[in-house]
């Protein structure tokens, strides 16, 4: 028990950082699902592509010395913007090529196509990474890797001190900024209203002279750009990336989206933080709690169990919207 309390500050900080990443990726799932009722399996891979694009730009710029001439914060921002543009366009392209022709097809068929897209992306990124660096696992240097100590023990002697990377603060700040911006956009702007209208009822929206295709393209762009930005934050935080990071992470982000009520943007943010903190808690304490029987290697099992439990007891999520099928 004391151990758990002792590590709690560190768990909370790491959990928040991870949760912020889940939350922003979850937004992409929830936005697309809200509009097309399609689980965009490729979203995890879009996140992964963002991580690779960001890292590639970083390594290239460091190679040419361009990086040194810019202040690091501006450079960081630039990398994120490039990755966002790239993944945003990628998302739009995927929608155009693989999803739009299937909009009227049975759900099963669109899901299969979406799954295919995610496999293709994994391999294409692997090719490129392997061609350029000889290895598909890529390490990147961290722009804000320095650590500082958070004296949690001064609050209560039960707590141990925690260390915080500067990048953790950047993740939290960036994630919050992105989420608030998206929330305002969806709730206040003209396009945001159109988006919600299409999510409610595509046919009626098109009768109200809303260009449904444009709204869908916009949704994919924004969702994918958010995913790409998170990829950059992730690469900066954890240092090592490979083409397969999107799979499990995407699944946890999807769990977050389901937990918050799929289609519900604020719910997805909340779900992301809950999953992130629970996962960190599980990974540092499962061993202690089960007397060493089950360790951190079960953290994915833990996240998955949450998905199952939510689906059984509260399939509409914590803040879900009522879905009814027209009979």
């Amino acid at each position, binding site marked *: 028990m004391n151990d758990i309390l002792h590590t709690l500050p560190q768990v909370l900080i790491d959990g928040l950082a991870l949760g912020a990443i889940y939350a922003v990726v979850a937004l992409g799932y929830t936005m697309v699902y809200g509009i097309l009722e399609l689980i965009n399996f490729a979203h995890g891979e879009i996140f992964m592509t963002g991580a690779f694009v960001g890292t590639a730009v970083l390594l290239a710029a460091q190679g040419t010395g361009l990086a040194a001439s810019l202040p690091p914060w501006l450079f960081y921002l630039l990398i994120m913007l490039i990755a966002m543009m790239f993944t945003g366009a990628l998302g739009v392209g995927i929608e155009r090529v693989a999803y739009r022709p299937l909009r009227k097809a049975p759900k099963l068929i669109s899901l299969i196509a979406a799954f295919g897209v995610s496999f293709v992306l994994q391999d294409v990124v692997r090719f490129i990474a392997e061609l350029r660096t000889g290895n598909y696992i890529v390490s990147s240097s961290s722009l804000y890797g320095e650590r500082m100590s958070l004296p949690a023990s001064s609050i209560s002697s039960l707590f141990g001190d925690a260390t915080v990377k500067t990048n953790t603060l950047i993740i939290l700040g960036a994630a919050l900024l992105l989420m608030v911006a998206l929330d305002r956009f969806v709730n206040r702007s003209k396009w945001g209203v159109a988006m919600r209208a299409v999510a409610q009822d595509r046919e009626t929206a098109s009768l109200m002279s809303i260009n449904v295709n444009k709204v869908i393209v916009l949704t994919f762009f924004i969702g994918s750009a958010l995913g790409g930005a998170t990829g950059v934050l992730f690469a900066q935080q954890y240092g090592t990336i490979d083409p397969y990071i999107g799979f499990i992470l995407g699944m946890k982000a999807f769990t977050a989206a389901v937990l918050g009520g799929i289609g519900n943007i604020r719910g997805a943010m909340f779900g992301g933080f809950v999953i992130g903190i629970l996962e960190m808690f599980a990974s540092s304490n499962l061993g202690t709690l089960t007397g060493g029987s089950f360790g951190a290697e079960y953290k994915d099992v833990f996240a998955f169990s949450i998905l199952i439990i939510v689906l059984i007891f509260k399939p509409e999520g914590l803040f879900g919207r*009522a879905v*009814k099928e*027209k*009979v």
Partner: protein
Amino acid sequence: MAILTVASLKKRFGGLVAVNGVDYSFPSGEISAVIGPNGAGKTTFFNLITGIYVPDGGRIELDGKSLVRVKPHVIAKLGIARTFQNIRLFGSMSVLENVMVGMHIHLKSGTPGTILGWGKVRHEEQEARRKAYRLLQYVGLERHFNEEASSLPYGAQRKLEVARALAVQPKVLLLDEPAAGMNPRETAELTALIRRMQRELELTIILIEHDMKLVMQLAEHILVLDHGEKIAEGGPAAIRNNPKVIEAYLGKNAVEEGVMA
């Protein structure tokens, strides 16, 4: 004698009250109709009876047995079959197979018997095919028995839904806009078929229909819904002249002019 009774039946979707405190008893062995303007809650009413929606309040009883919170497939077993307003056939299966799905509850073959191919199972299948074909003859679709259901013309699809529902061998048959999209000839055939089913199969038939001519010809009892509430009930003659009904359909002015087909 009433076979199906609903009492203070209620269903809400968010803020919208789709069915609000409806009481009605459907007499056994006769044809009743549920009518009302668009959005009056008629289809929701059917969905409540067949267990697809769970009511927020009230009672539904078939022969005195409650149907509230009973699963749809159990309700079928208890003796209620239906057709759908927006046709819900098993599109890629053959016409004959569609009817055979309707016989599900009357067939007994389990998984082991099926895999081992016992003679009993084969015999049952053969009988089921014959019977399904006879049902198709009954609604006049026997020529199409090998075709894919989705390839049938619209009117024939509606008839196939009726044949499939008959295969359930129900006591009560619910028809949701059976004549929608049919041409006058098909509607006339359908009218005859409905009457024949009531007489020959001793069915209680409840239909939702917008075609007033068909309703007035067939229905002995009419329940009128508007905004989820019962606004009138009675025989065709009484309903035709009920000012509330005319108002619901045609607006207030029509009442003074006294028009209704």
